């Protein structure tokens, strides 16, 4: 009442329009925001101690937001991204293959790509199954949301719950050799390891260090509304996956190379692998499978089919010596 009369009287004097107050206050808030938001981000760049919140197979880093790059974008807290709902992630795209250098360093980068896409040929002696790194890290380790190399490289060294110490990047790669590839890791200074690290480094060129990049890892799903169920999962599998991976999950081999990789059994990853966790498998499958139709299954279907994969036999976890 009194405010309205005051407002009207002010308007009628025609000397001062109260709308200016609104504009002035708004302007101050905008300017304050521009200064304050990056400032808080810089203050928060140190990784929070809540490392246990991220899944054991992932790196031990919390999701540390950063503001080092200009292309900072706000992450939409969609259901597939709950884990990251409060983080701000940075956009990054790796350089094109055509930009690969041709010098001695370029040779190592190229070998790294070959090992990554055709591990069976280029790092044969370190592999105990029929998989290639690229089977779980699509597009030669480039595809966002399939644990791309360019997003991983700058996040190490990091503490990992999986082995309870700070891991170098080499040790992280070694983990995938030991568990995902059911083999043994090349030595940190071996030709193979140097090549893989070179390839990752080159892909990550220009990315900020220690900053969570958009597209890292597999986007974790929200807890399912119904408990994941292998019986429902079997139906999902037969309808959407068997076409390529076979009803028996053993994949399809053509002239000595698997076109569609085996999902369980002796030729697949072992019980200690990140993919043997229902949570990781559900996240990977939801974002990446069926090939070329990522995000087409419902989240419940992804959980169920992951549970079905988990119900199948695979080589034992080498740390336990028994099948899991």
């Amino acid at each position, binding site marked *: 009442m009194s405010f309205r009369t005051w407002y009207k009287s002010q308007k009628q004097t025609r000397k001062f329009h109260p709308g200016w107050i609104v504009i002035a206050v708004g302007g101050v808030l905008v300017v304050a925001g521009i200064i304050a938001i990056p400032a808080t981000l810089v203050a928060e760049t140190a990784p929070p101690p809540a490392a246990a919140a991220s899944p054991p197979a992932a790196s031990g880093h919390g999701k540390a937001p950063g503001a080092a790059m200009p292309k900072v974008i706000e992450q939409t807290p969609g259901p597939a991204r709950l884990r990251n709902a409060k983080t701000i992630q940075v956009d990054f*795209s790796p350089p094109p*293959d055509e930009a690969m250098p041709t010098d001695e360093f370029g040779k190592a980068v*190229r070998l790294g790509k070959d090992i990554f896409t055709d591990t069976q040929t280029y790092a044969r002696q370190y592999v105990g199954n029929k998989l290639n790194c690229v089977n779980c890290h*699509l*597009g*030669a380790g*480039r*595809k*966002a949301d399939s644990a791309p190399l360019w997003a991983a490289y700058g996040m190490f060294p990091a503490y990992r719950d999986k082995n309870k110490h700070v891991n170098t990047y080499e040790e992280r790669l070694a983990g995938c050799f030991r568990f995902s590839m059911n083999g043994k890791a090349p030595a940190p200074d071996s030709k193979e390891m140097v090549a893989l690290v070179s390839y990752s480094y080159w892909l990550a060129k220009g990315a900020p260090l220690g900053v969570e990049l958009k597209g890292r890892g597999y986007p974790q799903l929200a807890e399912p509304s119904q408990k994941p169920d292998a019986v429902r999962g079997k139906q999902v599998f037969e309808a*959407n996956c068997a*076409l*390529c991976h076979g009803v028996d999950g053993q994949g*399809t081999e*053509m*002239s000595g*190379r698997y*076109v*569609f990789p085996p999902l369980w059994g002796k030729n697949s990853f072992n019980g200690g692998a990140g993919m043997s966790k229902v949570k990781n498998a559900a996240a990977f499958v939801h974002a990446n499978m*069926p*090939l*070329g*139709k*990522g995000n087409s299954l419902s989240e419940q279907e992804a959980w169920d089919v992951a549970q079905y994969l988990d119900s199948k036999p695979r080589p034992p976890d080498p740390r336990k010596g028994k099948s899991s």
Partner: protein
Amino acid sequence: MPLSFIVAWMPGSRNRVLPRPPHLPARATDFRSLLAGVVSIAWGATGASLAHADRLAGATLAQQGGGGAPACMTCHGATGEGQAAAGFPRLAGQGQAYLLKQLQAFADGTRKNPQMAPIARSLSAAQMRDAADYYASLPGWKQAGAPHTPSAQYTQGLKIVTEGDWSKEMPACFACHGIAGEGVPPHFPALAGQPTAYTQTQLSAWRAAQRTNDPLGLMQAVAEKMSDAEIAAVSRYLENPSRAGKEK
């Protein structure tokens, strides 16, 4: 085996159910069991030649037509190699299950084409199988003549075909169609050696949702992400794919 040939040429032999050969006798000196042995071998040979008979029937259909259907070779070439200029597809060496599925699709209207639809409708189920068996048994595409001279379009085609473009969620063509485009039976057809114009029409048809008979919509999900230039580049590359330009 002369006997098997005679049986193979017997009319209607291919429609017969495969007989289960009885056990060979333990003592072959016995005349009756010897006779039984001979008969069972003959039956076995018949079974083995039934497939051969199907192919022969398919060959006849391909070269002379039959039952109202025109000779397939007038459009698909004398050895099933297709006709590049007209955009008629290569059938030789294509997967049997895939060929059969497409003939059924033309006949029941789930795949539309004014030239093939009436032909497929005039074929009996047995004729479809014969034709599919025959063309699947012919040798597949082999690199012949000079590979493409590397050009910008060639390089673009090679890249999409072997690596895809994950920045728009598009997998490599060869991730599904085999490491050299030779096909992955039963669901994924060979692409290598297919006339440019044919591949181009099919990709455009999928993109426009005019061809929709692919399992799980897998092929449509790829085509809908392609630009005209990309369709042109892969189609041209696939007519004579070679890895010459592949960086090592």
